[in-house]
């Protein structure tokens, strides 16, 4: 058998490296899709048929303090309870402003998958509920601060 040319070997090893590095990300994203797509569709349909108006009245005071529309309670709840990518999918369906998505992203970046990650924290030998309370408080503080200071960031 003829030995491989140098160039051929280079491309083969590059392709191997790329596929090896891309594989975990693709598998992860496949997993994320299961969270993103249903959350997006549910929220988009709720919005389409005007069912979010009721939520608006109930949550306006608290959400207003954080500079968010009451609709944003849906991605917040999905993100905190289910996972960051459910929250992301739900948020993407709402067509938010730059300010709203920044605040929402910061809130969800700090507080997401609280049940699952609480379990990890407990397993590491620390207190799950202290960590969860800390995260929720920090989220609200961050959101209110960004809302108040937004003019500086533009």
């Amino acid at each position, binding site marked *: 058998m003829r030995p491989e040319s140098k160039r051929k070997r280079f491309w083969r090893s590059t392709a191997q490296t*790329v596929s090896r*590095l*891309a594989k*975990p*990300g*693709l598998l*992860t*994203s496949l997993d*994320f*899709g299961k969270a*993103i*797509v249903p959350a*997006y*569709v549910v929220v*988009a*349909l709720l919005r*389409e*048929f005007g069912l979010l108006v009721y939520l608006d009245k109930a949550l306006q005071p608290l959400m207003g303090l954080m500079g968010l529309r009451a609709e944003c309670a849906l991605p917040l709840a999905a993100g905190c309870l289910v996972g*960051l*990518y459910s929250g*992301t*999918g739900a*948020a*993407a*369906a709402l067509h*938010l402003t*730059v300010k709203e*998505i*920044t605040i*929402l*992203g*910061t809130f*969800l*970046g*700090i507080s*997401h998958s609280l049940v699952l*990650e609480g379990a*990890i*924290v407990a*397993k*590491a*030998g*620390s*207190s799950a509920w*202290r*960590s*969860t309370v*800390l*995260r929720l408080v*920090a989220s609200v*503080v*961050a959101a209110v*601060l*960004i809302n108040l200071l937004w003019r500086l*960031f533009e």
Partner: protein
Amino acid sequence: MSVVSAVAGALWNALVFWAKVTVIVVLLVGLLQWLREVGAVERWAARGQRLARAMRLSVESIFPLSVGVVFGLTYGGAVLVQVGQEGNLTKRHLWLVVAFLSICHAIFEDTAVFVIMGAKWWVMLGSRLLIAIAVLFLLERLGREKRPQDATAA
């Protein structure tokens, strides 16, 4: 008919959004995977010891801390569980690490996903880092005042 087209439209938009997330996740996870393979994390952690002392953290906490900040709680948690079981971290230092990581973990992945929706990345990253450092500082202060009492009780 309008219901069908609404569902189809929402589903299509959800898939487009998922495709965007997939691109980001594959690139980022691939990059992080490569960094781990070449041992960059360990090297950075070793260099971070001075920073750890400045933040009043123990040297043992810097590895789980840096892994968690970059890779997320799932990886950071795994390292933390291991370090916790080895018993090299005191309960108090473990809580400090958990508190910091609760607020500030997987900072690249979480941020990137919201940036494709239009969020300002530096506001998200900056606020999370600042709040995490502030919380660490406060908790460290509180812990220090409590310690003499603990000593007399014991």
